[in-house]
């Protein structure tokens, strides 16, 4: 009954100077959910690009057999023709087109060269029903949240008669509720006979949904395991090649006096008139303290942080901010930086880095004036500063003249952190500092965060991963629908308790 639908054998792929895949083998059984785990740079995405024809036949060595036939895909259309569809981490939807148009993009339902809108919308509605997307098919995709956009992608895949669905980090940008829905949907698709390959960093999800797990490390297949009886620690040790007893580095908190206080902070939406994003939030941070901010996607965490950081987001902002007991005004990002506040964004590629510039110019970007005398930058000093961070934060790059766009996610995040550490802040707001980062790099980021706290900085840590908050924070605030719904000391915090607070009051508001 369980025959092999996909067999990739001896796959090797070399980029100039780098062997990304080295004799990788992968076998996927018909009708299973197969997870692929590995650190960033382990070759997961490259393997999937080989499979889906992004790297055409001849660009790699090895053979691919799908459904008993050897495949030579010349491009993504060939693989889609065979029923292999890949959904990338960054969704590829046209934001201003409707759901139905997106589903049938490149596969338009036409009659004599003209699009048959009735058929398009009706067929879209049927596909949307299958993926559990309750929206009008003519709604523009831009009006949907990320979770629903993901569903549109899956509906699009279904419209192509998908037989093997590949999802690259499908839940990375989703909140827990949407993630759960997506995983449920994948189970349903499996029962309909659609085979799934899923790449995920969220090991709990992998264990929850996968039938089998293949682990890649440094471009090689390490092993394929049955998910039955597997534990996160086992996967992790396969991924990093060593045992991992402590996922969080130890730390002795030395908490000082209050350094930062926000009172009655209120923010309105810049796009939807009158909509409250943050309502009357109060919180305090103390020297040497790591404070967590927990909240579901859309709870207003980023909006809260960015509005405090020199009104970088939102309109109709009101409230008071105190630093060292004195009220301060933060009307621009520059003012916030001068007052010793730093904000490391959740989306480092879009908001954190100049990807076409090298490491040193990114490190100096926010603290350039510290390197300048009368408006002129000392670039030797800049090199020295950047190089010291490269060493101390273990940024893996040949030199600080390497372009940041070429670095892996974890190393990019270290560049972002370097940039903010260089501004010598007293208060650091870290927004999802480990998003999309592999386990080993996460540990390094945690070590950096602990070190910063040890140096007496106050840290506000925003994270979607509750274990991360529980593992690092001294105190955790919960945010729900723009309101602070709880403040829990580390000793009393549990995932269940936090989740209850994070969802508190949401039903009442709807």
């Amino acid at each position, binding site marked *: 009954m369980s025959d092999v639908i996909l067999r990739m054998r001896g796959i090797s792929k070399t980029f*100039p*100077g780098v062997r990304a895949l080295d004799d990788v083998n992968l076998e996927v059984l018909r009708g299973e959910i197969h997870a692929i785990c590995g650190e960033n740079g382990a070759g997961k995405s490259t393997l999937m690009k080989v499979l889906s024809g992004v790297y055409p036949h001849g660009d790699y060595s090895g053979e691919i057999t799908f459904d008993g036939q050897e495949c030579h895909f010349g491009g993504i259309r060939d693989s889609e023709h065979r029923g292999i569809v890949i959904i990338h981490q960054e969704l590829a939807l046209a934001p201003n087109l409707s759901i139905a148009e997106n589903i049938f993009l490149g596969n338009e339902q036409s009659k004599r060269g003209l699009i048959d809108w009735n058929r398009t919308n009706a067929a879209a509605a049927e596909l949307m029903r299958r993926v559990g997307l309750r929206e009008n098919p003519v709604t523009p995709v831009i009006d949907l949240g990320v979770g629903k956009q993901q569903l549109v992608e899956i509906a699009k895949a279904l419209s192509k008669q998908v037989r093997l669905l590949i999802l690259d980090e499908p839940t990375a940008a989703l909140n827990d509720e949407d993630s759960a829905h997506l995983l449920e949907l994948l189970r349903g698709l499996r029962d309909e006979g659609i085979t799934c390959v899923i790449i995920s960093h969220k090991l709990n999800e992998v264990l929850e949904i996968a039938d089998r797990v293949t682990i890649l490390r*440094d471009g090689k297949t390490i092993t394929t395991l049955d998910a039955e009886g597997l534990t996160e620690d086992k996967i992790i040790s396969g991924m990093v090649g060593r*045992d991992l007893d402590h996922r969080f580095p130890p730390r002795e908190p030395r908490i000082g006096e209050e350094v930062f206080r926000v009172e009655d902070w209120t923010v309105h939406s810049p796009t939807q008139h009158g909509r409250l994003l943050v309502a009357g939030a109060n919180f305090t941070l103390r020297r040497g303290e790591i404070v967590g901010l927990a909240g579901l996607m859309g709870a207003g965490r980023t909006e809260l942080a960015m509005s405090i950081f020199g009104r970088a987001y939102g309109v109709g902002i009101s409230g008071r901010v105190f630093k060292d007991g004195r009220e301060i005004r933060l009307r621009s990002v520059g003012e916030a930086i001068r007052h010793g506040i730093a*904000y490391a964004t959740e989306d480092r590629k879009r908001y954190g880095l100049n990807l076409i510039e090298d490491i040193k110019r990114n490190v100096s970007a926010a603290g*350039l004036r510290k390197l300048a005398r009368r408006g002129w930058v000392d670039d*030797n000093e800049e090199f020295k500063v950047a190089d010291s961070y490269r*060493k101390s934060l273990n940024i893996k*790059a040949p030199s600080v003249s390497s372009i940041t766009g070429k670095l892996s996610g974890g190393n990019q995040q270290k560049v972002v952190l370097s940039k903010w550490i260089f501004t010598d802040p007293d208060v650091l707001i870290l927004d999802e500092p480990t998003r999309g980062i592999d386990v080993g790099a996460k540990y390094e980021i945690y070590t950096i965060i602990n070190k910063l706290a040890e140096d007496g900085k106050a840290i506000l840590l925003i994270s979607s991963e509750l274990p991360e908050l529980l593992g690092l924070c001294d105190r955790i605030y919960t945010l729900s629908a723009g309101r602070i719904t709880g403040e829990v000391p580390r000793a009393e915090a549990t995932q269940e308790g936090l989740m209850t607070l994070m969802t508190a009051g949401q039903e009442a508001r709807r």
Partner: protein
Amino acid sequence: MSVAPPNADFMVGQQPAVPGDRAPGPRRFSINLRQSGIYIAFAAIVLLFTILTGGDMLAPQNISNIIVQNSYILILAIGMILVIIAGHIDLSVGSIVAACGAVAAVLMVNHDVPWPLAVLITLLVGGLIGAWQGYWVAYFGIPAFIVTLAGMLLFRAVTYNILGNRGIGPFPDEVRTLSNGFTNGYLGNIGLGGLGGADLFSILIGVAAVVGIVVTQWRSRAGRLRFGQAVEPLPLFIAKIAIAAVVLLFVMVQLARFRNVPWVLVLLAALVLGYSLLTNRAVFGRQIYAVGGNLQAATLSGVKVKSVVFWIFVNMGVLAALAGVIFAGRLNQANPTGGDQFELDAIAAAFIGGAAVQGGVGKVVGAITGGLIMGVINNGMSLIGAASEQVLLVKGAVLLAAVAFDVWTKRRAGASR
């Protein structure tokens, strides 16, 4: 056992390097090719026309002509490269050149304003025009393409209104000297053997420039070495400096043999030096690259993005006004149709010189080289008696080829991830 050693000193666990983290060697070469390709192309084009014209290309008078004839485009290209690095465009500079030339003419010819004051007022007017456009782009949020397209029409209309549909001239001698004239032979002539007499002052300027280049380059290299930075191998470094010195001295000797150093060359050299320093070393210059490279990241790093964009357009306006004065002075008349399509030459110069369409990339020296490439093509083709439509054809092909090469090298570098 934890993964990372629990050492206190900010060191994070050393891990075996992941293959993807290593920057492979060949990439370094392609970056170099991308940066130096423009100079190689320039040399090739000069060589080609030197052969085609039987050496006339590099004759003393012709070199002088190329510089003087293209000076206003080169000045515009300096402003344009900054605009393009910031991720914008300016289509209005041709009209600003005309409008400011008209203002200068009216002030000097009709109202007898002393020429230094008149030039100052003209530059101010250019700055105001730039501020007008910068306001709409930076603070109001209209794409620069639209704002400056409107400006192109608007300021052309302004020019016609000022001049009343006819040319105004002639300009005072000092202005004409700035555009067209040459430095005096302050130190007399010296004999260069078979080459005949040459202006000693011009040659000394050339020697001083070479010494300046050698000293600054060497000091910069020494500084980098002291900080343990990677530098190019010494033979390559010396070869580069030597080539630059030979080219520079050759040009200066040729100029000295003709009619000394043109004043516009002095002006241009000062502008290139100043703006190169600004883009490489000044905080403001760095912010231009930051804005063009990633607007949001720049904003969140505390860069006053709107103010940066605003001042770039003000700067463009001032430089366009300067180009306007020089252009009008060269023709000895301000013309309502003057400066037509200058914006296209300036934009082409910037892109041939290695600017990226998306912004964030570009160099002042690159834009100057791009402008000179077009100038040499113009000049060389007219020397060999080519028809003007053929000149357009070649210039168009060169522009497309330059940008295609840029895109290709970028794609090749990017394909590995």
